[in-house]
């Protein structure tokens, strides 16, 4: 936790600096009627700087190193796989379409990660994608991305 808090504190301080700088550069701090569009952003940046500083100080002082900040071993592999599959799904939505995309996504995770049998994998993947597609496009009239296959 100590390591993670230090990293987080530094990131937060950097964010605060950038956020505040943009506010000062682009938005009016004060205008004719009182606080302008830059007023609150500047103070929020200041508050985050203070809080980030507190976090940094307490993390530097902390004796107990605490648990590791980054997941290791098997857990990291699983997390990475789920995350990668989801990112791929979102990125490919316009190409694959919602129905094809979700079916492939489910198939990859169920078979590749969870090691379910093929019948279970295909049943769940195709079944879910179909029900999902039917409910949203037919009943709720949501225009899902269709992709190159047309659904």
């Amino acid at each position, binding site marked *: 936790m100590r390591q993670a808090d230090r990293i987080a504190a530094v990131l937060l301080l950097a964010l605060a600096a950038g956020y505040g700088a943009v506010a000062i550069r682009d938005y009016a701090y004060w205008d004719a*009627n009182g606080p302008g569009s830059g007023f609150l952003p500047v103070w929020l940046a200041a508050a985050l700087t203070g809080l980030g500083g507190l976090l940094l100080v307490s993390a530097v002082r902390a004796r107990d190193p605490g648990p590791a900040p980054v997941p290791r071993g098997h857990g990291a592999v699983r997390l990475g796989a789920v995350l990668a599959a989801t990112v791929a799904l979102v990125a490919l939505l316009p*190409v694959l379409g919602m129905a094809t995309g979700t079916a492939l996504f489910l198939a990859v995770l169920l078979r590749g990660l969870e090691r379910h049998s093929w019948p279970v994998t295909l049943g769940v993947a195709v079944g879910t994608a179909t029900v999902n597609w039917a409910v949203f496009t037919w009943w709720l*009239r949501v*225009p899902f991305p269709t992709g*190159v*296959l*047309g*659904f």
Partner: protein
Amino acid sequence: MLSRRALVATALVLTATATVTLTGFAQGKYPTRPIEVVVPYAPGGGTDNLMRMIVSIIDENKWSPQPITVNNRAGGSGAVGYNYLVGKKGNPHVVAGATPFVVSGKIQGRINANHRDGMTILMIVAVDELMLSVRSDSPYRTLEDFVKAAKASPAKLTIGGTGTNTEDHIFTHLFEEAAGIKVKYVPFNSGGEVTTALLGGHVDAAVENPNEVIAQVEAGKARNLAVAAEKRMADAKDVPTFAEKGYTFYWNQYRGVVGPADMGAEAVRWWQETLKKVVTSQRWQEAYIKKNLLTPTDWTGDEANKYLDGLNSKYEKVLANLGAIKK
């Protein structure tokens, strides 16, 4: 691109549905595929009501051989929906509800194109007037009272409206110029909030569309001082215009239907004819125009384009005055 084309080819062989939709292109008259009507705003707004009314009239008369669906693609005060439409260049089966943002969006750098270089205006179906309204127990009985009070104490009276650099804001600015006064403009998030603030007495006056305030006037809770139109409104003859009181400015919001660029002459003609049938229907006149106290129009082609050109130069001037155009 090559692999994508290969995929399309595979799809053609594999799936019957894809084959059916794709062959639809070649045959028959417009519309050959289902039509998507985009509302670039959230459900419940003026454009949403307009497009749902138009689609419902087309549906009940079965004027379209293909289904029409209304999709709300809200975001960026219309920018997301209009940019989506601009991106549909050459696709005649997508149209959108049009607002003044079609021209003012490009000026403010929020839409990539306007009616001249990326969209096709199909018809301007109505004009929504803008009025200055006060509470019924307000000391300002007439427009003259209001102007006199504003002159006596500059930058003291408040006028509420929706948003900043918007139609309501520009209205207030034009009124200030025409009457030689200075007021405080208070921006709110929606028309409902403006009316609430007016009725609660938190602002001295408010910029209102007729349909937002007419029920309050009927109930004796609010009073309209003047409308920024050239003639008095047909259904509210007692409201004077600003011009006849000597403060000459005109400002309103048009409502219409717009398509992407390069829709093809056939699709444009179909929409013009169908919309003409819509705006001459009895249901439109009664349930839409009269209920909302709109001024009906049926401008197409050059007439509509010229109107938008005029609007464009007005916006360029006023938005520059207000400091809303970023270099």
